[in-house]
């Protein structure tokens, strides 16, 4: 059983954060939250999303799992205006999701969840540095790096207590230095890793610019990015595997 009403913007934020990595996913309709966990086909980027029941106007679910084609669902959500409410109801008999937006009805055929890639487990990585940064700063660093390269360095200078977003291109270099004053919080530790911009750009697209992003970082280790949306009732964690120098 699943029946919910949610604002179009909250639904879109949730779907966007997942669709940057995968085309289809399982959605867990837990009693107290909606949850999605997915890893991209190359096993390089992962997303873990939860949207609390309180983020919905109304929410009733009993722990079922559905499989959806994300771009289809995003297209439908895109039909709504920002303030519109989206009604979602699962038809258990036909395994279809009925969606209603301001008089528009759409019946979405679901995908067998067993045919979708298994959800990953999140390992307990001990990442030595934590940086809390405004979404706009992250966005600025990523945009600048993208001008010169297709990979990006994230680094903490422990002595100066600064966070660096860096890129080395064919001829040009970019370095966005963020000190304690620019950051919301910094817990310095040895941290210096290189990432593919293809992935980070996509993840960045889903991060609202007014979000606070918590970056957990290590040395040649995956990065974790956490942020919230939907007035703090939606939670996203991204994890991205680094590019490493094998020496």
């Amino acid at each position, binding site marked *: 059983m699943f029946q919910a009403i949610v604002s179009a913007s909250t639904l879109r934020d949730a779907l966007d954060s997942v669709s940057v990595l995968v085309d289809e996913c399982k959605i867990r309709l837990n009693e107290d939250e909606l949850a999605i966990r997915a890893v991209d086909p190359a096993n390089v980027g992962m997303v873990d999303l939860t949207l609390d029941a309180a983020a919905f106007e109304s929410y009733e679910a009993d722990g079922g799992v559905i499989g959806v084609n994300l771009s289809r669902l995003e297209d439908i959500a895109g039909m709504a205006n920002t303030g519109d409410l989206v009604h979602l109801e699962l038809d258990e008999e036909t395994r279809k999701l009925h969606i209603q937006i301001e008089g528009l009805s759409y019946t979405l055929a679901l995908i067998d969840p067993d045919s979708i890639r298994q959800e*990953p487990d999140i390992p307990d990585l001990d990442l030595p540095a934590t940086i809390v940064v405004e979404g706009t700063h992250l966005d600025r660093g990523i945009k600048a790096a993208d001008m010169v*390269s297709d990979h990006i360095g994230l680094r903490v200078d422990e002595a100066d207590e600064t966070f660096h977003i860096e890129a080395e*291109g*064919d001829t040009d270099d970019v370095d966005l230095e963020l000190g304690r004053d620019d950051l919301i919080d910094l817990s310095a530790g040895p941290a210096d890793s290189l990432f593919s911009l293809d992935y980070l750009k996509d993840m960045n697209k889903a991060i609202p610019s007014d979000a606070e992003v918590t970056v957990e970082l290590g040395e040649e280790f995956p990065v974790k990015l956490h942020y919230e949306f939907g007035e703090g009732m939606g939670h996203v964690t991204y994890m991205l595997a680094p590019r490493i120098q094998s020496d």
Partner: protein
Amino acid sequence: MRLDDYIEFEANERAERRRLAMEKSYAIVDHLESFQHRFDERVQGDSLFGSVSPSIFVGRANYPNVSTGILSPVGFESDAASFETSGAWYDEGVGIEDVFRRRTSLLNSNQPADVKVGADTNVHDAWDGFLGVQREVAIADRPVSVEIGLDGAPEIDFDVGRDDVATPTGPRARAQSADLAENPHVPRPVKKTLEDDDWQAQGAMTYLYRRGFDVYDINSVLSAGALGESASRRLVPTRWSITAVDDTVGQYLRGTVRDAPSVDSVQVWRNEYLGNAFWVILAPGQWEYELVEMKAPGSIWNPDPESGMWLSSDREGFEGRTQYVDETAGAYYAARLGVLEHLSNIGRQAKVLVVRHVSDDYWGPVGVWQVRESVRHAFEGEHGESETFADAVREVSNLLPVSMADLRRKSAMVAGLQTNLTDFGVGSSDDD
């Protein structure tokens, strides 16, 4: 030798090579004159001549109103097959001059055509006349006897382009007519792809490859518009079709190793041909590929001897790429094909860095087949192994004309290899 003496010596060497290259071009011009003689001997009466045609050529200028032609080695009919670009050229060890000689011996008798042929008829239905004969030549598995009526004398303008994909071309003449002088032999699988007009081009190309046709054969079939869904069939400029086939077959091969285990050591393979050296570094991990090209001052695309080494690169990750490459053009897909054929053969995947060093001995572009065959044949004989990818790159870079720092800036793989989350204990237990 002291360093400054050495530098001067090197500069003199370069000047000498340029002079030789010029001479080689003059040799080609001489050759074209001899073509004129042979041609005059062959042409009967009203510009009608008989020859044997091994292949076709579709130009890309003015697309979609292209010039489409039948190539014939006038005066060398008995040896016509050797004039068709193929992997055999590598086995034969042809030199740059040989390539130019062969290509410029081919008369391109052409007609203008819309790539879709007409508003009502598409390529698929155009069986008659010049296009029909052209297609027969393209799909036949051996040179075909033809009679061609020309509209005037051939134009002999020799212009060495800087095109890295298509081979250089020779004399051209506008054709009035073309007729088959024999019933061409067409292999059964090619007939099948020709006749099935409900079969998407990519699938049909892959089918031919799996049936043992090399990319050279598939390229002419595609170029003549002889496969694909009927409404989509059209003439494909030779240059585009070469890369389309390399890309399509490469994607198929990449699929065959997608779930394969990885190579278990870091291997360095090398080959050198026609002034181009190729280093292929394979490292354990899931598929990732990059081509880095360094073009020496004085080589064909970087003619100014005073300019520095010209670097270009393109890459793809596990999922491949959707956009055409920015910097390395057809060489990217040709080298990738050679690498993927090897990996598919051994049933492994790998992280693959290909470094192409074009020296100033490469004075004329012979076509991208040179890249394809050099990489294909790089995996013969011995190879080197090293502990890590970084070690391999460092050792190779000692023999390259660029610093490690410049290489790191140009190459994403040298800067760092993409890991996946499984390497860090993220358990997604199924990988299918």
